[in-house]
């Protein structure tokens, strides 16, 4: 399967900070949505910065559309739409002025499509962005990101802070976007319920390290969590344990194959696992 985005061993350190991005590698195929999951400060935005060249990586390679994107490769950036969390555009602009600026930046800017999004999202074109609600500013950013016909959307916490109805509306827009088989989305979020709805793949990052990349269906239907008593936990085969977390009365153990675990450990309660629980177990849990 061809990849629209490939990261190979991306590392980045920061002066005066202990945090480092440590050899992050993953691939996003054409036609797919990848959820990029991690707690605040896990390295999601830094990774996106390295992908988009807004931050220089120390080592590794990022390939977009099969090529490494340098500052001069403006043709690649024509094909990427970006939405950041919060105010993407100066608040003293109006949507109309935003369109004028974008028209001067993107060769493929489609003003008619942008106007359609403004109408669909009920965004007043002549009102200053500072008078928009948070939901409206996010909708505007998504409209702007889509209106130059990108192939790859990169969304950095784009749905955080939105109410569930608005988030659902935006997720529909994203699903609509990936109907085209050469379109893909990388969406970083810590709202895992959104990703369960739309993502094809989930990549977990924690403390600058990539923990896992897997298909969402595999995570939801194959992975499982075992609720073990102390004695049961001690009897487990360490090779089966991906991560575990001790609670007051039990130890939750993440396993890669729930069915196999059911056969092997008949007296242990085994539950389906949500993306959020996997994130917690991988992030806050311990490894064998």
């Amino acid at each position, binding site marked *: 399967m061809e990849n629209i985005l490939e990261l190979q061993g991306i590392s980045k350190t920061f002066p005066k900070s202990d945090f480092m991005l440590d050899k992050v590698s993953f691939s996003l195929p054409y036609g797919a949505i990848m959820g990029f999951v991690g707690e605040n400060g896990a390295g999601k935005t830094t990774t996106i*910065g390295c992908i*988009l*060249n*807004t*931050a*220089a990586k120390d080592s590794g390679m990022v390939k977009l559309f099969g090529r490494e994107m340098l*500052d*001069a490769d*403006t*043709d690649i*950036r*024509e094909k*990427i739409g*970006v939405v*950041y969390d*919060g*105010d*993407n*555009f*100066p*608040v*003293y*602009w109006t949507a109309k*002025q935003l369109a*004028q*600026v*974008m*028209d*001067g*930046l*993107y*060769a493929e800017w489609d003003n008619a499509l942008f106007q359609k999004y403004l109408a669909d999202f009920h965004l007043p074109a002549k009102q200053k962005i500072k008078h928009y609600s948070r939901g409206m500013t996010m909708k505007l950013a998504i409209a702007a990101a889509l209106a130059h016909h990108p192939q790859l959307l*990169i969304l950095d916490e784009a749905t955080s802070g939105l109410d569930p109805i608005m988030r659902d509306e935006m997720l529909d827009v994203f699903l609509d976007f990936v109907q085209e088989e050469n379109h893909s989305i990388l969406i970083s979020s810590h709202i895992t319920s959104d990703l369960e709805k739309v993502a094809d793949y989930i990549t977990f990052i924690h403390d600058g390290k990539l923990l896992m990349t897997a298909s969402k269906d595999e995570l939801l239907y194959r992975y499982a969590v075992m609720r073990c008593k102390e004695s049961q936990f001690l009897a487990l085969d360490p090779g089966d344990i991906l991560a575990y977390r001790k609670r007051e009365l039990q130890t939750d153990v993440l396993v890669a194959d729930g069915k196999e675990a059911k056969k092997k450990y008949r007296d242990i309660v085994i539950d389906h696992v949500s993306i959020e629980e996997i994130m917690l177990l991988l992030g806050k849990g311990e490894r064998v």
Partner: protein
Amino acid sequence: MRGLLKSNYYAVRSNVKVFSAVMVLLGIFVVAVDNEIPSLIIGYMLSVMIGFSFNSIASAGRESAAKWSVYKLTTPVKRADIVKSLFVSQLLWLFVGMVFAGIIVTLSVALHGFPFDKDTDIFLLFVVGSGISLFMGAFFFPLFFWGGEERKEVFLVISLLCGIGVVMGLTTLVNTIFPPHMTSRIIWGGCMILACGILAFVLSYPLTVGIFRRKDY
């Protein structure tokens, strides 16, 4: 580039509207008042040229409150283009200031006669106004991209003071090199100050690009 210039224009627009209104009113006052003592006209010419330039560079980074300064890097423009757009914007606003100054001095001369000792004094005023503006921009942009938005105010003040200081220094140098009471001294001196200002402005561009290219956002 067109989009970046528009973005810069929207950043400076609201401030420039107020500044323009004040300069129009002040210009009417300057034209209305007798210009026998030309200090008012000198003050107007310098402040309108430097003022428009100052407004232009002061608006750099105004967008940093939003993520637009990072967002711009994800659009199909090079970092060098972003820097270039700021330099071009400043030149355009300096030109606007020169047009204001030119109109007001022309009207004043038309109504009240020529207020200066020599024709070249007007040339020198344009040179000083544009020289300070160019030096100010040449100092400000590398400092701004090096030190960031949070130190913008102090860099603005430093750049303005450096601009004035350098032009005063060059003027002293010209007065030392050329013999006094020579028209050619004013012309050559003016040309020298202007050439130095343009050179500093031009050299500041690759320096600023170099600094900006090393910055993470």
